């Protein structure tokens, strides 16, 4: 016998994931505009790797391929990972990072819905720990007057590791704005001196600040169609802003503005696309606020005092660990039992 309800809303996991992918497009478009089409190559590479790994793992786990390959979740992991690492990363790095994210951090924990950690962030963590040098070569944005590689030259580097004659990698890449900030502060420069460097724009890094804005726009679209709830991005950005603001107010010579932190690194991508992964974030409203606020604080602490230039990935993973506890602690009252003890 079939039991009620007999009707369901026409929604699906694959549709939700597809909308998230669509929401990434403004950020990706701006990325291409400022840094060239290399990012599209790594996105494509990551996508193919993700789907292939997903298929192999499903086969090994004896699960049906159709419904799971079409759920778009592996694609989303691939895109987020590709967007987190340098666009000029050699092809094998993209493949290793993506395969690890899908096979180890997703399928070995039970596949879709069962992974405790954000797969894309696990992929990122593996890469930054294993290949730290490669992870620092970011393309110099368009319009800086430097040497710009053509698309063919970018492809040649990604797949063959070959640059045009006489060019060194350092001539076409640079450290991220956050990385540069950290290094220069160590060298004794003040924030103001550093901000005058040509790689910085209005809010943060030239080019990258606009990409961050693109991700924020995509995030607002997700909020408007209720794919994500406001709790996560708002609490994360507020917490990051507040922490950065306090340090900036106390010592503006050594600590940059909160807005710089908002538009640097993976903050916007993280706020709207990474923390909001439903599988690895808390389910209760209060829990989401705690989780995201914690991630904001940790991101700042790692950026300002940690060993890595950006803290988004590790902050996310550290907060992922806490999710079951946060959920257990923040169970809301049920209908008719308001004001009662649990």
């Amino acid at each position, binding site marked *: 016998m079939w039991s*009620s309800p*007999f*009707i369901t*809303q026409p929604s699906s996991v694959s549709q939700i994931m597809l909308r998230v992918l669509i929401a990434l497009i403004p950020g990706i478009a701006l990325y291409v505009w400022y840094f060239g089409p290399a990012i599209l190559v790594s996105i494509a590479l990551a996508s193919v790797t993700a789907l292939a790994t997903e298929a192999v793992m499903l086969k090994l786990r004896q699960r049906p391929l159709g419904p799971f390959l079409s759920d778009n979740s592996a694609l989303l992991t691939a895109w987020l990972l590709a967007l987190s690492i340098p666009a000029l990363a050699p092809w094998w790095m993209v493949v290793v990072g993506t395969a690890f994210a899908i096979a180890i951090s997703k399928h070995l924990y039970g596949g*879709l819905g069962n992974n405790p950690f954000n797969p894309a962030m696990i992929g990122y963590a593996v890469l930054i720990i294993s290949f730290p040098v490669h992870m620092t070569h970011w393309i110099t944005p368009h319009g800086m007057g430097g040497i710009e590689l053509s698309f063919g030259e970018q492809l040649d580097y990604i797949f063959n590791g070959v640059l045009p004659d006489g060019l060194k990698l350092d001539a076409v890449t640079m450290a991220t704005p956050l990385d540069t900030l950290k290094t220069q502060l160590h060298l004794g420069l003040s924030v103001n001196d550093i901000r005058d460097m040509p790689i910085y724009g209005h809010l943060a890094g030239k080019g990258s600040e606009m990409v961050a804005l693109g991700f924020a726009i995509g995030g607002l679209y997700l909020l408007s169609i209720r794919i994500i709830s406001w709790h996560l991005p708002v609490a994360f950005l507020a917490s990051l802003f507040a922490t950065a603001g306090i340090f900036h107010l106390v010592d503006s010579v050594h600590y940059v503005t909160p807005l710089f932190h908002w538009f640097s690194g993976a903050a916007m991508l993280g706020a709207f696309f990474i923390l909001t992964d439903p599988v690895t974030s808390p389910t209760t409203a209060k829990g989401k606020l705690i989780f995201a606020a914690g991630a904001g604080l940790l991101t700042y602490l790692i950026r300002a005092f940690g060993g890595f230039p950006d803290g988004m990935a590790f902050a996310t993973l550290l907060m992922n660990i806490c999710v079951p506890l946060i959920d257990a602690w923040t169970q809301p009252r*049920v*209908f*008719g039992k308001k004001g009662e003890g649990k």
Partner: protein
Amino acid sequence: MRPLFKFHGGVHPATHKAESTRTPIALAPIPTKLVIPLHQHVGNRAVPVVQVGERVLKGQIIGRPEGRLSSAVHASTSGTVSAIDMQLVAHHSGLPDLCVTLIPDGKDEWIAHSGVDYRQTEHTDLRHLLRQAGVVGLGGAVFPSDMKSYSHKHKIKTLVLNGAECEPYITCDDMLMRERAGDILRGAEVLRELLYAEEVLIGIEDNKPEAIAAMQKAVLDDKHAHMEVIAVPTLYPGGGAKQLIRVLTGIEVAAGVRSTEMGVQCFNVATAYCVWRAITFGEPLLSRIVTVTGNVEHAQNYEVLLGTPVDELVALAGSRADTNKHIMGGPMMGVDLPSGSVGVTKATNCIIEASPKLFPPPPPALPCIRCTRCADVCPAELQPQELFWFSKAKDFGKAQEYHLFDCIECGACAYVCPSQIPLVQYYRFAKSEIWQRERDAQAADLARERHEYRLMRIEREKQEKAERLAQKEKAALAAKAASPAPAVNPEPAHTSSAADPDDTLQMRIDAAVARAKAQAATAQPKNVNALTPQQQAEIAEIEARRAKIREMASHAGADDEPPKSNQG
């Protein structure tokens, strides 16, 4: 304008109500036979009081109420009883129950009946009349109305009349309100009297403007004081008693609490109508309005004699050839009927003819991605994703900790689930498992108590025996002392051993009693102890489905797959 309150969550499924409201309620003809179940209400099954072959008149009692919580069952028309046996019934258990089969003679001949003036009649007598007239809640809960219409003075402030009808497709209350508003309100007045309620709030979802207008007009025409018709927002499950009470009064009635304890009682509009007919005209509940819709040529509301076979009813509306099941109730909480041969009961508000095209089977379920859309729509403010997790893992303790029993099974969670997980199925499974375990535990407790009592009894008997022996010896000794030549030894061993058990046995008995008491005191209160009679009846019903669901669950895969429903 009265301020309305909100309940959490809710969904907006397509209403599909227009199809069946185009034409007025039609009178369904007397069918070729009537299959009248004797258990159409919450509580004890009515006891048959007619014989096979007996001629009965319309309105004659064929099943008398048994026990405190029960209701009478009547012959819906005149005719001959052809069988009293177990038949499939319109019930979610899918199990057969005792039914009276009646072959109508077509004369539709009434038994002598007359009503009373409710103002001149004792409340106790009115309630007795309702019980004898078989009046039960027609919103679907079929709880005997006499049991619900009792209250001390000043205890109940508000009588909520439920005309919300939030489930898609169903329009029987809508049409009844449009056409018979006057009698509904008169019935509500009787109920208000019985409850000593100060006000009557009539809640109707705002997608029924005609019904709202008709009811408002009736309130004005008949100058009903203390009555107010209130349009409530259309939001499923806004017609759930607790949700409607919340919307109209702001009061939240927690699970396991009766709304009367918070000063509110709730009746369905169709029940109020039947109350009026039963009290004033002495007409027992013989028919009800049934919406026939879905895969039919002409969706329509019918006034249907109870016991009319569903097959004969849907034929009136022109059920199409590709119909593959009959759903009783709405698409959100309805029941897939075991057969078209079952008779319409007091709970049958709607028959939806279903076809694979109309209700396509859901795609295979994916794992839960914790998106919490279910929690967003849950009117009980539960965390369905957690309940699902615990139910699937059979971690029933945790499921209860997360308030499984507050779930009203409205289906909103499953409706929005992007992974298409049949969530409600999991909750029903978990509930029935918990009930079973608690009953097992109770049985074990009882067995242990019996065992300890038995030990106590054996000890007591031993002791009594010893005492009797001691008495005998004393008597014998006394006799010997009195007699001149006592030659026989007095067997001293007996006397000494008789005194000993007196103390130690008593101590052991006391200890056993104390042990039993301690155990009883430390025993956790069980869900099954605090149940209302209605819940007990529900347990029995759910129990029946339990085996089936458990079988489904046992087929389910280790991690990803939900229990498979077999579509046969």
